[in-house]
């Protein structure tokens, strides 16, 4: 059963029970009140009758000149006094032997009534059908007589029955009206639940951007809100996953392109060498040279790629290294590259300890300086500086090269992105250097920033956490 049906049914049953109980109780009360009143008046009537009959009997005694009236005389006197009467109250006299002495009409005394009077000695009232019987024991003329009165109480009973019927009708009408109102109210109250249901189903089907309307401040709007939070979290995660998948696809696309370009030349020229009959010495040397240089390019690419892939996976050797020493050591090996192109390289750092992986750190500086060398003209200056400041270590690589245009800035750390493809290739670049640097810096919990002006040079600033200066 649906929730709205349950709520509706249970509420309806409860309300109906409450209404009927109340009305039945009220009816019962009012009926017993009316009956009591009736009993009171009947009782008074009974007393009045007995009292007046007794006094009339004294008069009769005087008139008859008898000390005690015989039962026969009494009966006669009763007949004279009350006569026969079908309307009004029925009156009946009985002697102690339960024999009827007189009645003003045919009366059927309910069983047990007289016995009850005799046993208790008090007057007694009993309802039988639409009749109210009042009985009392009176001592008259030295004997005990029972006086029974029969009064019609059909008016009270009829009113009671009428009201009972009315209440039933009213209850039915009420039930219908309440049911209708309840139905509308329950539907309105549970409407948000339906919306939540629909929304959740839609979200579950993959419409992660779908949101459930949040109205009011009740539990349902809270639920809707929480559902929305969940959907948002799912959406963010899915987007992140999609982003990762897209990045990966992009990477693979680029990789396959970068692999295919040298491969095409290698295969093509070796094919030519194989199938052509006459090849001039000149072409043979040229073709072989191209094959060799393209193969070298592939070797560089695969080497860089391996480095990039394994950088995060290999067990890193974290050690406190003295930056002053490390920088001068790296400077010496980098000087060879700079000297080849007549460049002035300065590589120095303030002394102090920093926890790094020596090999990765070397690779980082090597790649940055390699980039600077490739971007700069012969005879220009390249500076690599390290310094400790505010508990952090800063590395700065400055060159006076061609610089990087603003729109290129965001893309330069992407794998395989090359600002100038032709120049990069001529220099044997694979477009992976900065991607590798970024990976290394993030492994050292650092941040890398580029500042550049086209034509004037580039400044790379790296900030790494921690570090202890000797200064």
């Amino acid at each position, binding site marked *: 059963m649906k929730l709205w049906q349950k709520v509706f049914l249970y509420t309806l049953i409860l309300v109906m029970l409450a209404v009927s109980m109340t009305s039945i109780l009220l009816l019962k009360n009012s009926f017993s009140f009316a009956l009591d009143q009736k009993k009171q008046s009947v009782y008074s009537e009974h007393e009045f009758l007995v009292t007046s009959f007794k006094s009339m009997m004294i008069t009769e005694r005087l008139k008859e000149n008898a000390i005690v009236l015989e039962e026969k005389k009494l009966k006669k006197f009763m007949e004279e006094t009350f006569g026969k009467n079908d309307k009004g109250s029925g009156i009946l006299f009985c002697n102690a032997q339960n024999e009827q002495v007189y009645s003003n009409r045919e009366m059927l005394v309910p069983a047990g009534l007289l016995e009850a009077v005799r046993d208790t000695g008090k007057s007694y009232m009993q309802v039988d059908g639409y009749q109210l019987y009042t009985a009392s024991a009176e001592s008259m003329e030295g004997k005990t007589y029972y006086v029974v009165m029969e009064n019609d109480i059909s008016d009270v009973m009829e009113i009671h029955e009428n009201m009972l019927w009315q209440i039933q009708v009213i209850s039915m009408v009420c039930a219908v009206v309440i049911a209708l109102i309840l139905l509308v109210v329950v539907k309105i109250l549970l409407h948000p639940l339906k919306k939540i249901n629909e929304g959740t189903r839609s979200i579950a089907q993959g419409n992660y951007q779908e949101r459930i309307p949040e109205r009011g401040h009740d539990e349902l709007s809270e639920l809707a809100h929480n559902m929305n939070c969940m959907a948002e979290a799912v959406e963010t995660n899915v987007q992140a996953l999609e982003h990762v998948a897209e990045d990966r696809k992009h990477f693979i*696309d680029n990789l*396959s*392109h970068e692999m*295919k*370009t040298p*491969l*095409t*030349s*290698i*295969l*093509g*020229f070796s*094919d*030519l060498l*194989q*199938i*052509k*009959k*006459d090849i001039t010495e000149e*072409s043979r040397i040229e*073709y072989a040279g*191209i094959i060799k*240089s*393209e193969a070298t390019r592939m070797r560089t690419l695969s080497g860089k790629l391996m480095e990039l892939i394994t950088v995060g996976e290999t067990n890193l050797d974290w050690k406190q290294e003295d930056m002053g020493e490390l920088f001068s050591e790296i400077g010496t090996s980098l000087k060879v590259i700079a000297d080849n192109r007549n460049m002035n390289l300065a590589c120095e750092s303030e002394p102090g300890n920093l926890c790094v992986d020596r090999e990765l750190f070397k690779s980082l500086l090597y790649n940055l300086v390699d980039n600077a060398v490739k971007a700069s003209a012969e005879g220009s200056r390249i500076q690599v500086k390290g310094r400790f400041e505010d508990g952090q270590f800063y590395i700065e690589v400055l060159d006076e090269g061609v610089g990087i245009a603003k729109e290129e800035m965001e893309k330069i750390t992407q794998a395989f992105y090359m600002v100038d*493809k*032709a120049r990069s*290739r001529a220099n044997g670049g694979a477009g992976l250097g900065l991607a590798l640097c970024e990976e290394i810096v993030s492994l050292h919990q650092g941040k890398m920033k580029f500042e550049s002006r086209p034509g004037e040079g580039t400044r790379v600033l790296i900030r790494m956490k921690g570090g202890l200066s000797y200064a």
Partner: protein
Amino acid sequence: MIKILIVEDDANIAKLMEATVAIGGYEGIVCNNGAEAFEEIEHGNYDLILLDVMLPDMNGFEIMQKRTNTETPVIFITAKQELTDKVRGLRLGAEDYIVKPFEAMELLARIEVILRRVKRTENIYSYGNISVNVEEHTCKSNGEEVYLTPKEFEVLVFFIQHKDVAISRDRLLAAVWGFEYEGETRTIDIHIQQLRKKLNLKDKLVTIPKLGYRLESAKEQ
């Protein structure tokens, strides 16, 4: 001479393509930049264009969309091997789509097919005292007609088109019988023997060990 525009930004690959088309006897003109290539396509007079997709300044797809000179057939030559790229390239009106890395003979064969389709190839080839008419499907040796089976005829034409080039059995199978042919390379040997016998080419159509066959130039006769 048939002129082919080679649009390729990698200098080595451009050189390779130039050398390859030269084998087929075509003149290759290299262009390494998208925007320049667009100008060349619009205003130059070429018989065929070999177009790379990833180019500086303007990519190959853009060039295809913008060009107004749609007469010249285009073959895309690219490293992008996804089906969507291929479909896109062909939808834009390219005649063919070759994925890098490609083999020299494959490129030549595809160029040949397209040039034949647009009727820019010659109909009559001659080799020494043999002359072949592709249109009429006839072959004459010393003015006398020689009967060749259709496959023998196609093999002969293929060799004449690629004089002095060593042609592997697989390549020949692919070119004459189609890429899906799953027969034995032995079939080739039988056809070659027939050709040698019928046209007296025993010294010219030479076997190259471990590779295939080569038709030597007639000049040296």
